[in-house]
């Protein structure tokens, strides 16, 4: 399936999805948190897309909003795409988990929670993974301050 076909297929599920191919080698789809789980489930189970392998999951702090980025690939059709969720709420960022769709997401989501503070609803075991339980703040946020360890230049 090429990018245009993917686009049409996604538009059928989520008409509000935004697309961009600029500055990236993959097709980028940006959706809002409420559409994520439905779209993800569809992308995985639809026979034409079968995006069954998630090779990367990460978060980005764009200061105005957060973004969770899912890199997906189909092991059958070998097409790839990037799914992005824009989370405008900076105080209580939350998005549905996709760990029930891709098992590896469970641990990558824990890492995103640990370093960005983005909560994943319905996650089976949402705890910090790399840092200690009592660590204060979320280090990969752009407004994170650590005067002892980080030297501002």
């Amino acid at each position: 399936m090429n990018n245009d076909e993917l686009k049409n297929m996604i538009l059928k599920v989520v008409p509000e999805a935004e697309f961009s191919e600029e500055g990236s080698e993959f097709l980028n789809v940006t959706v809002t948190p409420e559409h994520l789980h439905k779209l993800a489930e569809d992308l995985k189970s639809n026979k034409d897309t079968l995006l069954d392998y998630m090779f990367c999951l990460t978060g980005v702090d764009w200061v105005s909003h957060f973004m969770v980025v899912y890199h997906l690939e189909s092991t059958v059709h070998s097409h790839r795409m990037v799914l992005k969720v824009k989370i405008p709420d900076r105080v209580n960022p939350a998005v549905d988990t996709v760990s029930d769709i891709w098992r590896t997401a469970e641990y990558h989501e824990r890492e995103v929670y640990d370093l960005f503070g983005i909560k994943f609803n319905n996650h089976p075991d949402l705890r910090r993974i790399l840092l200690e339980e009592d660590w204060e703040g979320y280090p990969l946020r752009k407004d994170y301050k650590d005067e002892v360890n980080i030297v501002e230049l």
Partner: protein
Amino acid sequence: MSNIFSLISDKEKQSTSSATETQEYFVNMGPQHPSTHGVLRLLLTLDGEIIRKVEPHIGYIHRSIEKMCEKDSYQQIVHLTDRMDYLSCHINNEAVCLAVEKGLQLEVPDRVKYIRTIISELTRLSSHQLWWGVMGMDLGAITTFLYGFRDREQIIDIFEETCGARLTMNYNVPGGVMFDIHPNFQKRTKDFLKYFKEKLPEYDELLTGNVIFTERTKDIGYLSKEDAISYGVTGPSGRASGFSCDVRKKDPYSAYDRVDFKEIIRTDCDSYGRYKVRIAEMYESLHIIEQLIDNIPEGDFKAKTKAVIKLPPGEYYQRVETARGELGVYIISDNKKSPYRVKFRSPGFSNLFALDTMAKGYKIADLVAMMSTLDLVIPDIDR
């Protein structure tokens, strides 16, 4: 009377049930444990010696490499990646360099591609040699450890001669390699190929054909293809479950599109399959190096780059195949001298968490075999 009788029998019932029922208990495997190969902690729920649950606790050597990258220039980032998967350091460096070159739309000279590929394959060989030795040691055959190290030493010596370092090489820079290969490089590599072709069958003789070894690994640690894909288990571990995930074939980089090699896929899905895949990969690596070593083209060892690299705004994702699986480098640039965000998708992180599914119902001794066939490197997981 009957009342008293029933009381006694109740008590008896209790005592017999507590005698026959077993109780689950926890054991902390690690952070200091000989077979976790670093500071990995596994919280095991055991019933006798049978594993009910494995819960990995990581982060003991988290060095916040991703945060550090946000302050560093692109040339500096390369050096941090050595400290992730130190056994395939050259391949990690290459991943960052390729991502930066992709952003700059820079075509590197052919010579660089050949050198990178040869050294990548040598790195993979050295990593697999170390894995083979450690795998034997985990199963109680200490001699293999020293045999593995004996042969690895030859490769490390070649690296030392060419780039001055033995483990964390930092040989790659965006645009090429730091300096040209040593005049002896080709000769020594060819000598090594000859030497190791004789030694590799010894590995099979010592471990693969051993009855105890096959008993310990066959049908142990079953990971189905669906689970492997869902957990994102890549590299030799994924390919042993039938998951065709070799980035060198799927998404060729450097000179991999110019060489002929096989992607080793097995459908055993067990520890033995993972073992055999790595052994077969060593033969393939030798084959790749053989095709390239005599044909290194003349030319520059480095494309010209600016002193301060600024990537155009955008997202760059580069995947490479390290000795452990697929390493992804995700760079988001906002046209400054350091990246806006860098994410390393390390193979070990995804591979490790499949352990719970694999280990359920097996014994502690099997867990050790599974961990060594997953070939975990802890700094790679923690980053």
